[in-house]
């Protein structure tokens, strides 16, 4: 698949074999830690350092701000609309692509991955070309007093676009490798199509679905560029990531970092769930292998 990089980290234990001297090993590990420290650890630490730097009260005040709470509600609302839609899409696309033959399949797979290759700002421009004041549907929307861009529908469309691939790209390789044999057996034994899907297909791929869902959720809650283009920076009417930008440009550093810390907690939770799902997948794979050999 184009543009596909596995997000799965490894849990392989290092194998033995010829290796470097202890000094070289320590040096390489040290250099790797410096690299990660400069680009990942220091920024993460600075979020909390700056957010709590003036004590707990300014931090809590920033979070209790009604505009922050409205942004939080909007962020959750966006994810609640977008993630289920793209989950249903991912499952349907994976079913069609891995269980049937049809012409144009490689093109379809490329299209599903396309949003990862397109700059979010360009996605926003696409929506403006369709629904903006100078866009194709702009005059019609104005006549009927209906807003898409610079309103919730535009933010939903922008977020939907950038999160299209997440569930599909987890499911397609997995369902491909599992093959249709179990599902065909269930149908032969008299199960209906839906029964087969719910009781045979889904239990086998549920962790991969969940994996795609949490990554899509993190992106949906944190999307910046695409939503930036199709929203007006009105406090309380923008998602958290954009609210961070507004606060920062108003030089409200502590408040900006306090809101950023919420999104950082989301990222940490995402990584923890992701690590848990990966260990689970590994155990199920190991169990599957051992039951095959029995």
């Amino acid at each position, binding site marked *: 698949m184009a543009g596909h990089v596995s997000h799965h980290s490894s849990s392989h234990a290092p194998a033995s074999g010829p290796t470097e001297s202890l000094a070289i090993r320590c040096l390489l590990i040290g250099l790797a830690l410096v690299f990660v420290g400069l680009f990942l650890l220091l920024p993460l630490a600075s979020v909390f350092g700056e957010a709590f730097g003036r004590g707990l009260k300014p931090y809590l005040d920033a979070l209790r701000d009604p505009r922050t709470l409205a942004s939080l509600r909007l962020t959750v609302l966006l994810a609640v609309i977008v993630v289920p839609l793209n989950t249903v899409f991912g499952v*349907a696309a994976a079913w069609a692509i891995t269980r049937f033959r049809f012409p144009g399949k490689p093109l379809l797979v490329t299209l599903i991955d396309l949003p990862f290759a397109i700059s979010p700002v360009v996605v926003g421009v696409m929506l403006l070309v369709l629904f903006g004041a100078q866009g194709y549907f702009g005059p019609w929307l104005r006549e009927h007093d209906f807003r898409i861009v610079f309103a919730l529908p535009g933010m939903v469309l922008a977020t939907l*676009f950038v999160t299209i691939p997440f569930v599909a790209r987890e499911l397609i390789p997995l369902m491909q490798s599992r093959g249709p044999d179990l599902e065909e057996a269930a149908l032969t034994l008299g199960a209906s199509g839906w029964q087969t899907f719910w009781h045979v297909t889904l239990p086998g791929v549920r962790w991969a679905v969940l994996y795609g869902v949490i990554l899509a959720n993190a992106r949906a809650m944190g999307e910046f560029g695409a939503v930036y283009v199709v929203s007006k920076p009105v406090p309380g009417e923008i998602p958290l990531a954009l609210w961070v930008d507004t606060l920062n440009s108003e030089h409200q550093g502590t408040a900006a970092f306090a809101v950023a810390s919420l999104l950082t907690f989301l990222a940490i939770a995402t990584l923890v769930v*992701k690590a848990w799902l990966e260990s689970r997948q590994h155990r199920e794979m190991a169990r599957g292998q051992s039951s095959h050999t029995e």
Partner: protein
Amino acid sequence: MSSPRPRVLPGFRLTLGFTVFYLSLLLLIPLGALLLRSTQLGWAEFWHHVSSPRALAAYRLTFTASAIAGLINVVGGTLLAWVLTRYRFPGRRFLDALIDVPFALPTAVGGLALASVYSPTGWMGRWFAPGSPLGDLFGPDGLKLAYSRIGVVIALTFVSLPFVVRTVQPVLESLDRSIEEAAACLGAGRGRTFLTVILPALIPSILTGFTLAFARAVGEFGSIQFISSNVPFKTQIAPQLIIEKLDAYELEGAVAIAVFLLGVSFMILAAINLLEGWTRRFQS
């Protein structure tokens, strides 16, 4: 394995129909509208917007900063992949999980945090601030990290950090260690073994990782919004120029530059497809 068989599973029309409908509505219509709009500009006007001195300066910064960030990640990412697959040390699993932070952390937060760390008063930036011993090496103004071109490179390195690690890691894991043993038996030192035996096998995946990182960096906007001072000809990247055009109600100019960036993305995508085919041959 199964031979060609008639379609016995249900749901073909439903799932394929829904997939095509959904993609058309959300992806193809917006994409088509953008392309259609750019053709309505006419070649002369399109070219005028795409090749203005400001746009050229923005592309130059976008592509060079993305390439430098990619190269930093080639070195740092290969090192990380090596350390994670070959050595045991306390905190290895934590380090492995940490690599994915740029995938999970909103890029706005990444940009805000990096701007704070590398600003003249930040944890790293202060060492290069005017008047500091290190900063004086770079002249009376010190070395500006955040809000300069260096800041753009730092942010792009952050957002594209996982790609090289995650493409090189599986290849390193699947490498046949007996070849290294053979090289050792034939008298090669570890350095020589790495350069002549291991590195050649990693090159396709390193190139793929670089291209993926480059592709991710070229489109980045969120983190740059925080760490770049957005000065035309100096620190303005292409997506920022698009935003500037939109703010000035110049949709035409924004469309032209967006289509140009889209064309670049498609070319990178084609390169990634070729590279991934090449990588797979090395892995199997």
